């Protein structure tokens, strides 16, 4: 079984997202970087698939050279190989990103063999375009289901489960497949010390990204209107309980 997982390096803001003065980017001066929780789960799913069925897993990202950090994190929990499509900016538009990833997949497959399963996150944490995985799947002519919260493998078929408004839907797919994974499909493991050390030695293959600019172009980022609130402090410690219950009665929650 050969599995590929695509991740994106994104900042990890805390209480507020601050912007650079020119409004072109999130101010990351004091921020750490991460991958989206959806993609962390996709990485964990890739590691589990190879643990179950044997084979090899690869992680791929398109991003600045610093995205090496996210590739090595994936390697530290058990991914075998890494591919970096290095770009000058923090991100490319979604059409361009997808065409670069699709063409890199074709290149890697031409030398190393086809991937049975290509995993994405349901959506990227920062831009949330909800499309890169779908576009890549279409370019490769493979079936794609997004929002997957369960994967079961049986010989050459994949049962993908997802939660919909009406209940749980099951898709029965034939490999090779492309799946977009949602957080909750698994609980990603933490890297061990041994894993961390091993990840330092993983070779990161550099592939030059190729893709035409798409029709969606960012002009600027804008803060969302902040909800300001005059917080009413009902009290301190357990002595505040009567005031809380008064409030519950006032709001009609407790009758």
């Amino acid at each position, binding site marked *: 079984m050969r599995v590929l997982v695509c991740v994106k390096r994104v900042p990890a*803001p*805390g*209480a507020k*997202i601050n912007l650079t003065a020119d409004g072109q980017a999130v101010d990351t001066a004091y921020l750490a970087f991460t991958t989206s929780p959806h993609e962390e789960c996709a990485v964990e799913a890739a590691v589990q698939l190879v643990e179950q069925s044997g084979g090899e897993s690869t992680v791929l990202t398109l991003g600045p050279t610093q995205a090496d950090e996210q590739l090595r994190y994936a390697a530290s929990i058990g991914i075998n190989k890494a591919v970096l499509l290095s770009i000058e900016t923090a991100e490319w538009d*979604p059409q361009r990103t*997808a065409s670069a990833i699709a063409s890199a997949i074709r290149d890697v497959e031409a030398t190393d063999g086809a991937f049975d399963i290509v995993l994405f996150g349901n*959506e990227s*944490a920062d*831009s*949330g*375009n*909800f*499309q890169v995985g*779908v576009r890549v799947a*279409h*370019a490769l002519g493979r079936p*794609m289901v*997004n*929002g997957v919260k369960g994967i079961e493998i049986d010989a050459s078929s994949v049962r993908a489960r997802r939660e*919909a*408004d*009406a209940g749980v*839907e*099951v*898709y*029965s*797919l*034939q490999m090779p497949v492309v799946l977009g994974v*949602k*957080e*909750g499909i698994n*609980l990603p493991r933490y890297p061990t010390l041994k894993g961390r050390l091993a990840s330092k030695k993983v070779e990161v293959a550099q592939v030059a990204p190729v893709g035409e600019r*798409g*029709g*969606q*172009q960012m*002009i*600027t*980022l*804008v*803060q*969302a209107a902040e*909800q300001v*609130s005059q*917080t*009413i*402090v*009902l*009290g*301190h*410690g*357990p*002595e*505040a*309980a009567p005031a*809380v*219950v008064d*409030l519950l009665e006032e709001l009609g*929650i*407790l009758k």
Partner: protein
Amino acid sequence: MTVLVVIEHDRGTLAPASLEALAAALRLDPHVEALTIGATADALAPELAAHGAAVVHQVHAAVLSDYGPEAWGEVVAQAVRVLRPTVVLACGTDRGNEVMAQAAARLDLPMVANCVEIDAATWTITRVRWGGSLLEQCTLSAATKLVTFAHHSHEATPSVAAGAVVSLVVELDPSLSRTVVTERVERTAGVTLATAPLVVGGGRAVGSAEGFAPLEALAARLGGVVGCSRAVTNNGWRNHTDQVGQTGTRIAPDLYIACGISGAIQHWVGAMASKQILAINTDPEANMVTKADYAVIGDLHTVVPAITAEIIRRNG
């Protein structure tokens, strides 16, 4: 300008989000057309007309008996080729975004997800990032504009139109059935996190799975459910189905009682639609406290049981 709205339904049951998409479409142009996919959706035409659809295009094919992202996306792509709309609009739900992305891939056109505002004169669009914590302005240049509207950014509005029914003929390759739903397990009825009138949320400070028992007791007293932060699910204390936030569930209760939750932006975005928020936190400067309507400053482990005890004292 022709605006075509892709109607989302589940085996003929209309997704309320589709009415939001119609409302968003009417703000772009008074003449709005709707596309329903599969025979199970034929009966929706009068309701769509009652929400502003002047024409309803109906599509029939064997592979459309249930939802399938590729088959639905191919239908939208063919509708664009035949009807040549200026804009195609859907609601930015899981299915809405998935179908539009499939259509965009097939047409090799851009697709802008989760818009809140469109200036159709310049095609400058405001869309949400970070699940709604940040906005982006972008331009969209394409022969046909494919966009989804952020869920809940528009309200469904009654607006009567002709609702003329037209059938749209499509050729669907039988291989598109490869991604059609093959099995379903219906949800059992009951209060869900997304629809609960009251949510008691617990964060890292709860400390353990067992630590949630007092929160469960309070929620049960108030007819609500328990939610949690990602720190809690990451620790394996609760199932991910209880997680509130950007990568969890968006809640909108009458009251959200957030206990020992710092209010990181990714949690806040899932909680901000709550009508009222009461934060219980030892830190008066915590983001959850400063953004809440009400706060109790203190240790949740003593405050929460005291509230339940007071309710019992008053109501028995």
